[in-house]
């Protein structure tokens, strides 16, 4: 009935009838227009030889020249490779550890222990990336680092991670896990809590041991959550974790080879070199690839579990 009535109204009539609801959305509409839609025309800077005086639209059009340089120098490839490989490690190991922690937490009997340990594991998520960088530096630096203090004490040679690019893939993954696992495990812990208690009891009565309960009840019921979260995470695989990399590696060129991701490169190109054309070319490339991946992932999710699809 109501639907039919709406269908008969013209656009203007709808606007007038729902003006209050529209006005309630207006601030958000203006916000996203100002900060997310207004920058879009500026993408043009990726196709020009940018000149401050002439501005984005007055500078000379050079076609795909900015992209050509990035592609032929191999820069784009190495940035993409670093970004994707780090994200793959973050996503796979992150979810693995999160599931592992959630399952173990669920097996604990003491409520107090559960609560306290969850609170502590959540702590690293609440601090700023700046502090994460400081914590890591405090642990690992050559002169006064905590780790080197221990190494010296046990008579082992001091370790210089800040001039050794090879160790950072491992270190960054560990730091990422350290910061995110408390957060990631919450979703899994909640879905374990949601498992039918009677099913667990029945399994216990039937003599299923702990491993069997995990293998045949908990893991299968977590499967949909794991699949969906993994797929969503894969949708963002070309988006790097700028805060983590920038605060830990910073502007230390020795480490770029193994730690430079798209975001850190774009940031330096913009803020240090003022090379807006190159920065924008890399950014546009990232946005397009990211968009294609999200749409693909969404298509897959829709096939598996339509109600979880994003759009």
């Amino acid at each position, binding site marked *: 009935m109501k639907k039919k009535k709406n269908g008969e109204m013209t656009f203007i009539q709808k606007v007038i009838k729902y003006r209050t609801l529209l006005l309630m959305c207006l601030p958000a509409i203006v*916000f996203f227009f100002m900060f997310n839609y207004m920058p879009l025309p*500026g993408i043009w800077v990726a196709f020009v030889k940018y000149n401050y005086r002439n501005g984005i639209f007055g500078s000379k059009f050079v076609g795909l020249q900015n992209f050509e340089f990035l592609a032929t120098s191999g820069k784009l490839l190495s940035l993409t490779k670093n970004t994707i490989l780090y994200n793959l490690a973050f996503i796979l190991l992150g979810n693995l550890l999160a599931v592992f922690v959630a399952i173990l937490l669920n097996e604990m009997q003491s409520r107090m222990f559960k609560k306290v340990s969850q609170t502590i594991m959540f702590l690293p998520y609440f601090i700023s990336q*700046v502090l994460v960088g400081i914590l890591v530096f405090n642990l690992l630096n050559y002169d006064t680092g905590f780790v080197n203090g221990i190494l010296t004490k046990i008579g082992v040679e001091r370790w210089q991670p800040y001039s050794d690019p090879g160790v950072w893939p491992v270190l960054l993954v560990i730091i990422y896990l350290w910061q995110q696992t408390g957060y990631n495990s919450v979703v899994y812990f909640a879905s374990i809590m949601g498992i039918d208690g009677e099913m667990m009891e029945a399994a216990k009565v039937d003599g299923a041991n702990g491993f069997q309960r995990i293998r045949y009840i908990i893991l299968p019921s977590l499967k949909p959550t794991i699949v969906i979260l993994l797929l969503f995470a894969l949708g963002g695989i070309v988006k790097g974790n700028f805060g983590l990399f920038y605060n830990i590696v910073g502007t230390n060129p020795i480490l770029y080879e193994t730690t430079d991701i798209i975001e850190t490169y774009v940031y330096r190109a913009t803020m240090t070199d003022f090379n807006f054309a190159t920065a924008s070319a890399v950014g546009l490339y990232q946005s397009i690839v990211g968009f294609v991946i*999200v749409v693909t992932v969404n298509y897959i999710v829709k096939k598996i579990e339509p109600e979880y699809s*994003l759009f």
Partner: protein
Amino acid sequence: MANKNMDLMDSGAKVKLGTSDKIIRGFGYAFITFYAICCIIPFVIIVSTSFTNEVTIRAEGVQLLPKDITLEAYAMVAKGGGIWWSYLLTIVLTVVGTFVGLSIISMTGYALQRKDFPFRNGISFYIYFTSLFSAGLAPYYLLMTQTYHLQDSYFAVLLPLMMSSWLIILMKNFVKAIPHEITESGKIDGAGDMRIFISLILPMLKPALATIGLFLALGYWNEWYQSSLFLSSKVAVKPLQYTLYEVVNKVDALKNSVAGQFVDLSEIPQESVKMANAVLATGPIVMLYPFVQKYFISGITVGAVKG
């Protein structure tokens, strides 16, 4: 009767607690304890270092527990004084940004969840699209500095953090749980949409407001990124975390630039001052977070599945 059955089952299960359960439990306690210790040790080291004498740090490196407690570093920070202004700025940004952002997000979330609102799909997509495709940093930076002229303005920090498509979706999911009949009953009583929202819906959204408000507040408290983009050295007072970033990097810069000159660097407590700044900048959020943790947890579980 039912209770008695439950008890029986419980005790039955306990009797059957086999070796495998013991192994899992034992391993679980050991692993979780170890993991929790790993989570907390870096914080302990930072606090210890902030109380340690600079000479000791130089000689022995940072320690898990301080050997000799000194307040020297904190005295230096207090004497510098700048950090209190950063505190004030961060508190103002956090309070204003969270309040305004929360108002807009909750209004929008409610309107977009109204089943009779014909524009809801269009507007939802308009907002959601921003998380799918973005112009990237360079066009954003040029727009903010050259078109909006927000270079060195606190608005460049305040505005962009006010909302995100994710938070609006999260709010929509919370509103979804409120039955549509509430709105209907308000309409029958002759209340307008805004009136319905403020007097009927908002009171039921308290947990949602707490959760989303905390995400916003955490974003403002931990903000350093927009500051690093838009606040140059011309701005004397910067948000807390970015001040911390500058303190850490400036001390290093000092060390490089004046090495071998007239300043005796061993006299300047560097490491301990950095750590005292870190403790002061992080302290409030760490103190507060055990009390607000449950709201974050509800936010993560509600937000994990998109609606």
